[in-house]
C-alpha cells in the first residue's frame, strides 16, 4: 500500500481517496432520499384528514433543544477531526465521545417528542400528514441511531489500533456523515417545524 505523506492521513492512500469520493457520492444519493421525503412532506402537509395540523402539535422547546444538541455535536466532531489531523489521538477520541453523547441526548429528546405526539393523538395512522411527519423525522432519527453505533465502533478502533491511514479514513468519513445529518436537521427545523408553526 503506497502511502503519500504529503496528504492528510485520511487521504494518504489511493483506497482512502476512493473511499472518500465514494462516500460523497453516497451522500448525494442520501440528499435525493431526503429530498423525496421533503417533497412528499410538502405535498401532504395540509392533508390532515380528521387529525391535528402541524401548528396544533408542534412545540418549540423540545425542537430548540434538539437543534442545539445536534448543531453542537457537529461542532465537536469538527474539533475531533482537527485533533486527528494534529495527531492527538486522545483529544480526538474525547471529542468524538462528546459528539456521540450529544447525539444520544438528541435521540432521547426525539423519542420523548414522538411519544408526546402519539399521546396527543397524532400517531402514525392518524392522517397522511402525521404519517409523513413521523416518517421524515424517523428516517433522520434512524440515521442518527445508526451513526451512534458506527461512531462507537470507530472510537473503539482508534483506541485499539491508533491513528492509521485506515482508521483516520473511517473517522473522517464518519464526520462527513454526521455533518450531513446536521444539514438535514436544519432543513427539518426550517421547513417542517418553523414553517409549520407560522
Amino acid at each position, binding site marked *: 500500500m503506497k502511502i503519500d505523506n504529503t496528504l492528510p492521513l485520511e487521504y494518504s492512500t489511493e483506497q482512502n481517496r*476512493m473511499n472518500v469520493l465514494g462516500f460523497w457520492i453516497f451522500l448525494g444519493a442520501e440528499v435525493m432520499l431526503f429530498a423525496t421525503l421533503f417533497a412528499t412532506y410538502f405535498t401532504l402537509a395540509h392533508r390532515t384528514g380528521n387529525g391535528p395540523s402541524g401548528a396544533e402539535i408542534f412545540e418549540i422547546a423540545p425542537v430548540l433543544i434538539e437543534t442545539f444538541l445536534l448543531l453542537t455535536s457537529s461542532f465537536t466532531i469538527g474539533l475531533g477531526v482537527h485533533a486527528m489531523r494534529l495527531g492527538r489521538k486522545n483529544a480526538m477520541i474525547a471529542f468524538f465521545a462528546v459528539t456521540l453523547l450529544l447525539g444520544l441526548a438528541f435521540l432521547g429528546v426525539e423519542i420523548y417528542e414522538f411519544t408526546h405526539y402519539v399521546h396527543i393523538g397524532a400517531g402514525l395512522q392518524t392522517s397522511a400528514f402525521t404519517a409523513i411527519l413521523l416518517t421524515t423525522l424517523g428516517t433522520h432519527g434512524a440515521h442518527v441511531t445508526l451513526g451512534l*453505533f458506527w461512531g462507537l465502533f470507530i472510537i473503539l478502533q482508534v483506541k485499539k489500533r491508533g491513528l492509521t491511514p485506515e482508521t483516520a479514513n473511517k473517522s473522517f468519513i464518519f464526520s462527513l456523515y454526521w455533518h450531513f445529518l446536521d444539514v438535514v436537521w436544519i432543513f427539518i427545523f426550517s421547513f417542517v417545524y418553523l414553517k409549520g408553526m407560522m
Partner: protein
Amino acid sequence: MDYFDRFAIPHPSPAIYASMVAIGLTVVAIIFGLTYFKKWGYLWREWLTTVDHKRIGIMYLISALIMLFRGGVDAIMMRAQTAVPDNKLLDAQHYNEVFTTHGVVMIIFMAMPFIYALMNVVVPLQIGARDVAFPRLNALSFWLFFMGAMLFNISFVIGGSPDAGWTSYFPLAGNDFSQSVGTNYYMLSIQIAGIGTLISGINFTTTIFKMRAPGMTLMKMPMFTWTALITNAIVLFAFPVLTIALLLGTMDRLFGTNFFTMTNGGMDMLWANLFWVWGHPEVYILILPAFGIYSEVISTFSRRNLYGYKSMVGSIVIISFFSFLVWTHHFFTMGQGPLTNSIFSITTMAIAIPTGIKIFNWLLTMRKGSIKFTVPMLYSVGFIPIFTIGGVTGVMLGMASADYQYHNTMFLVAHFHYTIIPGVVFAMIAGLTYWWPKMFGFMLNERIGKWAFWFIAIGFNVTFFPMFFTGLDGQARRMYTYSEATGFGPLNMLSFAGAIVLMIGFALIVYNVYYSTRYASRNISADPWNARTLEWATHSPVPSYNFAITPQVNSIEALWDHKKKGQPLFSGPIEKIHMPNNSGVPFIMSCIFFVWGFSFVFSMWIPAIITTIGIFVCMAHRSFEKDDGYYISVKEIEDTEKECEVQSR
C-alpha cells in the same frame, strides 16, 4: 396449523401446484448434484465468496438469462390466453398475476442484471483497471439483487403473486383491493434489489472517476464506459426515490398509514408520481448502456471510428437530464390539467432530438465503412429501424391530447416493447455475443447465432406490430379476454404465432451456448473481432488481475492506435499486484436480507427483528474487520502470462 395458513396460495391452480413440484425437484436436484460431484467447496470458494468483477458479471448474466425465461413463460401465457376470444386458459386473477410478474421480472430482474453483467465484465477492462473501486460492495450488490429476485419469484408458490400491475398503482395496490400478500412481495423484493442497484451506482461512478488508466481523460473514454458512467449517475438520483416510494407503500400495507389511501388525507396520485419519477429515468438506465454497446459494436464491425464522439457524449448527458423531466407523460389522462400536460409533452418530444443525433451518428459511422455482418452487428443494424418505429410511436404518445386515444391500449404495449426489445434485449444479446470470448475464452457459433437473430427479429415484429392496430381499434391492455364481436381475434392469434417464433429464437440462443461450449475452439486470440478498445488488449479469458502491466492511454481508441499506429500501450516492468480478499459476508448478509424480506411480507415480527439485528451485526463485522488484501507476486504473473500466450497460440 393456523400459523401456516398464511403461506397458502389464495388462488391455486394445477399449474401452480406443478410449479411447486418443479421448484422442489430442481432444488433437490441441485443439492444432490453438488453433493454427488463434491462441488460445495468449489461453489463456495470460487463463486459465492468471490469479489472478482468478472465472476460477479457472469453470475449477473446467468441470473438475467434465467429471469428472461421466467418472464418469457409469463409472456407466452399471456399471448396464449388472448390468442382467441373468450379463452378460458387463465382466469382474470391469474392473468393479473401473470402480467404483473412479467413486467417486474423483465424490468427489474432481467434487464437490470443484464446491464450490470456487462458493465461488471467490461467497464474495469475498458478503463484498464484491476477491479472496481469497492469489490466487496460489488459482491453485496449482486447478492442483494439475487435475493430480491428469489424473494419475488417464490411469491407464486408461497402466499400468492402480486397482481396490481408492475406499476402497482394505489389504491388498487392498497390493502382494501389487494388483500393477498402479493403486493408485499412486490414492495420488499424490489426494495432489496434496489438497495443493491444503488450500491452499484456508487461503486461504478467512483470506479470510473478514480480508476482510469493513466492518460485516459474523460473525453478519451470508450463510449460504453461513458454510458455506464451516465447510467450510474441516473441510478444515484433515481433509485432513492424508489426506495422512499416503496417504503411508504410498505408502511401503508403493513402499518396502516395513510400515504396513498383514499381516506384521512391520503393521496393516491402521489404514488403514481413517485413511481414514475423513478420509473422514467429507469427507462434510460436501461437504454443508455444499450446505446453504448451499439456504439462499440457498430464501430468495430464497420472498421471505422465512432462518428461524432463528442455529440454522442453530449446527447447521453442531455438524455440523462431530460429523463427526470418527463415522468408525467405516463399519466396524461389522470387529471393534471392542460398546462402541466403541455410542459411534459414538450419535454417528452424534446428527448427525440438527442436520440435522433445518436441514430444519425451510428448511420454515419457505417457510411463508407467496410461492414462485417457478424451476429452482434446484425442486432445493431436491426435495432436502428425497429427502434425508430418505437421512437416515432413514442412521440405520438407524447402528444398529450392524442394520448387520450392511446392511453392504456395495446398501442402503448406495442410502443414500449418496440423500444425495450430492440433497445435493451437486442443490445444485451449483441453485447453478450460480442464480449462472450472475453468472458469465457471461446466464441459463440455464428451460424446458429444468425438463425437466432432472424427468428427473434421476425418473431418480434410479428408479435408486436399487430398490437398497434388492435390498440388503435380500442383493445385495452391488461384485459384477460375479449368477445368475438370486437374483431380482435385474428390479429391476436397472429401475435401468439409471433411469440412462438420469438421463443424459438431464444431457445436457439440457449442451444448456441450449449453447442459452442462443447465444440467451439479454445484457441482464440485476445482480440478475435479485431476491435478497438482496451478490454481486447488482455487475454481471453481474462486473468484475475486483468492487465499484467497497467496500460498507457493516448487516444479514444487506445488498442486500435496501438495496432495501427504503433502507439505504446504496455511499457515498464511487471510489478506485484494488490488484490482484494474473497469474503462470504456479502452472501450471508444477503441471505439474512432474504429472510428479513420474507418476514416482513408475512408480518412475522419476531424473525423480522432478529434478521434486522443480523444485518447490523454483518455491518459491524465489516467495520471491525482488518482486510488488507493480498499480493500476486511478479513470478506468478509472469507464469500466468506465459500460460495465456501458449493457450492462444
